[in-house]
């Protein structure tokens, strides 16, 4: 998250979670006493210790890929494919890319400019959101377990292609005037 263009992250999501968690912890202590409070703390500290090395690996991979593979290379190779090939390539890239939103959205924007293909851009973003490997390994599996995550991903496997295809069909019907109007 280092090349974030502007870190507008005085982060109401962080603080809302902080207040929610603090409130919940306080309520557990008040209602059920120290024994239960500490029991929950011990259980979740274990989960925390389990996740930390994965998060560290995930951030390392993210930083290394960001530095080693230039964005232009990815955008160019994704913009090259047309029809289903383009959607498949974009989906694969979204699954594999170990990056955060400040990398993924500019890449998708570059796709729109370079190939003018809204379908590939939508497939890329959706695959990153729904099927991203890095996210699943680092965050989702520790919380939910491999069974839930595997089932969820299997059930979602079709989605980036379908979203990309639908976006491409609809974008082709939009006139430049409609796009400009929608941008107001």
């Amino acid at each position, binding site marked *: 998250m280092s090349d974030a263009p502007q870190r507008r992250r005085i982060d109401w999501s962080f603080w809302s979670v902080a207040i929610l968690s603090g409130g919940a912890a306080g309520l557990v202590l008040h209602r059920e006493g120290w024994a239960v409070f500490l029991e929950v703390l011990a259980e979740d500290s274990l989960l925390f210790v389990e996740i930390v090395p994965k998060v560290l690996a995930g951030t390392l991979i993210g930083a290394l890929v960001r530095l080693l593979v230039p964005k232009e290379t990815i955008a160019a190779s994704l913009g090259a494919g047309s029809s289903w090939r383009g959607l498949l390539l974009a989906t694969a890239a979204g699954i594999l890319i170990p990056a955060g939103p400040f990398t993924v959205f500019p890449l998708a924007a570059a796709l729109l400019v370079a190939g003018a293909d809204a379908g590939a851009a939508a497939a890329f973003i959706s695959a990153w959101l729904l099927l991203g490997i890095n996210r699943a390994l680092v965050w989702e599996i520790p919380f939910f377990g491999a069974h839930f995550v595997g089932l969820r991903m299997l059930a979602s496997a079709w989605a980036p292609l379908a979203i990309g295809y639908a976006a491409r069909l609809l974008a082709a019907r939009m006139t430049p005037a409609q*796009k400009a109007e929608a941008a107001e």
Partner: protein
Amino acid sequence: MILLLLTASLYVVVAALMVVAVRRKDGTARKAIEFTAKDFLHLLPRLVLGVIGAGYLARILPQDVVLALIGPDSGIRGLLAASVAGALTPGGPVVGFALGSAALKSGAGYAQITAFVTAWSLFALNRTLIWELPMMPSWFVRLRILVSLPVPLIVAALVMLAA
């Protein structure tokens, strides 16, 4: 055991990339470590909160309410409720997963939590506002969201069929 293997394989990838970076001899490796330190310090407090907070939330979520709203037998209405809740849950890597696993512990259904996680992934409002809209043309963002609308329900229905 599986988790251990997963972690190990992550570090194999790290090692391979690190070798490439060090061989470049242009400071890429050092830069990568600087980036990582910054990112990691940014994530750490969020991680503590997300993980520890989820445990307490799971403890206080009223099970009968969770069951009635998004339990395994809550049907289509439960899927819709979970999808809307997911779209309204703030973004950030931990929040949705933490809340979802808390709800699962309190008796929510697999399919309902799939709808929640999918909707949160596709639509999380503050990610769209903070990251996507400033970087992408707004016609595209609307188009992406429009065509993604039915996805959480369909994915959850598939999970329901499989389970």
